């Protein structure tokens, strides 16, 4: 039986255990492109469409934590309570593909694919999210920074299902910015998430390195500077962000342009986040 369609998480985990080489299918927006272009010929597919436990999200007011099931589509993050708890994730979700792609594509798919251009990933890095995995031997949780190990590489074992991701509710301004060739329907050339959490500023960059890059030097520059940021400080913040990046030339852009773009995005986010009406 090559297409496995579990109806519960327990069954999904058992199927993953007995078929560790199966391609895990969430929304299909990554895997099906590869299949359509004959880049992949899957032998076994484990489709998570009918695993209801993965399709929910919760906001726990007591622990101030958001948990998002891996099969929650981006369209659900754009509006409503989830977007209020994590405004940067909502902004990132709105930049994913088109309405059709956002209705299908999931946060678990972004994690499973682990492309450096995955739109939600800089938010997870900035919010120091925890990735939750499950196998027949139990649950495993790890920081996102440890989960993503390289371009399209992660720490998931073949027998594990990504069940979701959890992170703190935003307790300060946060924003997401992305550069692409046009406004809709683009894979990012460079992206950035800035979260001004009460514990300190956190900046993460996408599409400018093999993994999502945290910028500790830039964060330290503004850690103890409340209030408005002038252009010189924003430029220095951007310069440190660019220095932390390690982009490459590829079919989507050049390393030089990505370095420039990410410095502008970081500086712009800092000015946006510190501008008080």
């Amino acid at each position, binding site marked *: 039986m*090559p*297409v496995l*369609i579990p109806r519960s998480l327990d069954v999904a985990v058992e199927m993953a255990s007995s078929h560790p080489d199966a391609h895990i*299918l969430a*929304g*299909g*927006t990554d*895997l*099906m*492109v590869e*299949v*359509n*272009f004959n880049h*992949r*010929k*899957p*032998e076994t*597919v484990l*489709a998570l*469409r*009918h695993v209801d436990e993965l399709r929910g999200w919760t906001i726990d007011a007591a622990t101030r934590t958001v948990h998002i099931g891996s099969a929650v*589509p981006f*369209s659900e993050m754009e509006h409503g309570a989830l977007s209020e708890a994590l405004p940067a994730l909502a902004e990132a979700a709105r930049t994913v*593909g*088109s*309405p*059709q*792609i956002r*209705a*299908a594509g999931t946060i678990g798919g972004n994690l499973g694919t682990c492309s450096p251009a995955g739109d939600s990933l800089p938010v997870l890095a900035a919010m120091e999210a925890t990735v939750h995995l499950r196998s027949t031997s139990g649950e495993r949780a790890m920081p996102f920074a440890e989960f993503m190990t390289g371009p399209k590489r992660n720490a998931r074992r073949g027998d594990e299902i990504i069940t979701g991701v959890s992170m703190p509710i935003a307790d300060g301004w946060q924003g997401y910015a992305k550069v692409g060739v046009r*406004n*809709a*329907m683009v894979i990012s050339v460079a992206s950035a998430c800035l979260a001004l959490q009460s514990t300190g500023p956190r900046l993460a960059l996408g599409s400018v390195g093999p993994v999502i890059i945290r910028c500790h030097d830039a964060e330290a520059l503004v850690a103890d500077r409340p209030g408005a940021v002038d252009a010189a400080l924003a430029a220095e913040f951007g310069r440190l962000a660019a220095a932390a990046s390690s982009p490459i030339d590829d079919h989507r852009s050049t390393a030089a342009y990505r370095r420039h773009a990410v410095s502008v995005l970081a500086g712009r986010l800092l000015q946006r986040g510190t501008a008080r009406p």
Partner: protein
Amino acid sequence: MNEHYTLRVNGVERDVCDSWIGESLLYVLRERLDLPGAKGACEQGECGSCTVFVDGAAVCSCLVLAASAVDAEIATVEGLNPDGTLTDVQEAFVREGAVQCGFCTPGLVMAVHHLLDAEPEPSDLQVKEALSGNICRCTGYGRIFAAVDAVIARRRDAAR
């Protein structure tokens, strides 16, 4: 290995036999179920000409693994008005000249129905956003937006 499964398309159970595991819903609709309304162009979710509804969500059928879409309500452009008459959206497309080569039209019609069913009075920005995943290389979109406006106005009048 060959796949056998049943899809529920436009309210009808349809058997799919001897298919390859990797076939997209678009391929199965067009080549196996004789429903060629959804069009295939980019095969990577960029053009929207294959838009169908799966459990009420407008998605690109080229990115849905057909064999995984069992137990889902699939609706295609053929099912909008099963008697073959034009819907108000299709009529507005004709009347406003929103169709040139016509290749993108079924996907756009599905996207417009999906938008207006959820939001009967969308802003111009909401319309543009809702149609941002449907590419038309002929019209320049002006007449498509005019058709959407015409449907909104007609439905508003009908509700009065």
